[in-house]
């Protein structure tokens, strides 16, 4: 089970694209094996600070006690290259 946390900034163009891309990759590669939380930094700036998120969009993965961050480019290709698919 992969725990994913996606930080976005309201409905900015990149944030919208990030939600769409992350969702698509997860559904096609991790269906049933992930949980995704989308956090809007406008609404919950405190959680972003706790996770030390500086720039948005950022995807945080918790796997095997390790925290992996993907910052900025969350296109399908970039996500797969960063190993989100498997």
């Amino acid at each position, binding site marked *: 089970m992969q725990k994913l946390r996606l930080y976005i900034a309201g409905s900015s163009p990149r*944030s919208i694209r990030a939600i769409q891309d992350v969702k698509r990759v997860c559904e096609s590669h991790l269906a049933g094996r992930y949980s995704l939380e989308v956090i809007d930094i406008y609404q919950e*700036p405190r959680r972003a600070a706790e996770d030390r998120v500086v*720039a948005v969009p950022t995807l945080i993965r918790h796997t095997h006690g390790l925290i992996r961050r993907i910052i900025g480019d969350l296109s399908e290709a970039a996500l797969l290259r960063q190993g989100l698919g498997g």
Partner: protein
Amino acid sequence: VATMSQTPSGQNGQITEQDRIHELLARLAEADETIRAIYSGEVDAVLVNSSTGARVYTLEGADHPYRVMVEQMHEGTVTLDPNHLILYANPQFAALMKMSAEALTGSNFDRFLPPGDSNLFAALAEAAALHGYGSGEVNLADAGGDTVPARVSVTRLEVAEVQTLCVIVSDLREQRRNEAVVKEEQLSRLILDQAGEGIVVIDPQGAVVRCSASARNLSGRPVLLNHFDNAFPLQTPGSPLNTRRILCAASARERIRGREATMLHPDGRHSSLLVSASPLWSESNQLLGCVVTLTDITERKRAEEAQMRQAEELVRSNSDLRQFAYSASHDLREPLRQIAVFSELLQKRYQDTLGDDAGSLIQHTVDAAHRMEQLVKDLLTYTQAADSPQEAVEPTDTNEVVRQTLELYAAEIAQCGARVDCERLPVLDVHEVHVTQLFQNLIGNALKYRGEAPPLISIGAERADGMWKIAVADNGIGIPPDYQVQIFGLFQRLHGGGKSGSGIGLAICQKIVQRYGGRLWVESEAGRGSRFLFTLPGPNY
């Protein structure tokens, strides 16, 4: 473009130098990665933690959707500085206030607040400043001075240490209109259901679309959405009164007013109805239907008919009675006259042989016969007082009638030293013979029922309720209160045998005055004179 870091707590609580270097390197990689992403434009918002809390800095284009939302949303939006200066206004607010957005920016929001509502808005703004949010219903006045009811929500906003107020204005006009429409609908329902008359509205096809409670009761059949002719089968003696006729009149913009019709009930009863109909036209000249009013006049008609029958009967019996009284008094006079004549003959021829006693008895008989003759004569006058002369009423100069009456009583007036004061009197729309009878009786009574002092009679007139009120006052013996009504009855005499008369004079007067719609009454105090008053029609001077 990924970074990896171990959880800060380490593996078994023992943080070695190696681990620390490892973690710092990972953080450095993260920071590098963040900077790279920012530089390469992959990021559109940056979060900064300052002493006053986390702040989001949005990069170019990120706030565009919000901007579009605010510009396009139905609500009016303005941002104000703490002095209510307008920093931004969306097109909806500009349209709502009938101004251009450019003209709005830089002007003061308070200009749209009528005096009564500026306090309310100030309170909302204060609530927003204190608690972050305030909302309420405020009347705004647009640039044309028209009132715009609105829900106003004020939110405190702090942008880069600058305090602003974000105000959202929702137009409540339509909602109010809808409420007004609902209220109107309720009102018309209330009116329909409380109206005593049956009210129905029919559409251009003749179907009943509205119907009052009493119309429903009147019909006794299913009314709503049924054809009017089925709900109210009307029968009229002349041309038919049905939906076709009603709608025909309606399309000619004619109204039907108060036509009488009979309606057959399912149980066989009949009702008499008064039917009126008015067309309903739309503003675009389209016939919407017709309002039909049905008044149940069954009871009224029944009462009217009964009253008419009674009146006819009364006229018949009155005329019978008059006929009887007339012939009776007429036929009685001849035998009476004979009794008087023969008694007098008896007196003349046999006075010496019969002696004094018989003479006085015969004298009594003669007197009684004369008295009875007078009675019968008066009775005849009384029965005729109601019968008016056949010709139309000619105006009568009351002054002339009084003059003639005084002439008639001249001898008596001279004899008792009476004084008569007479004001200027009006012309009356009354037969002269009736006015004469009135004054002869009243002046005659005033002379007859005099006290110790010489009679003082005054006659005056004044206008009262569109008629003339004439008073004949004297200083005679007066009438005790108990008799003040009684004296107007037939054969009512107050003062025993002391005064001559049949006791019919005032009854005749009463009858005459009533015939012209007037009234006759007396104001008196025993021993202090009487004042007879009567009202009769006549033109004003």
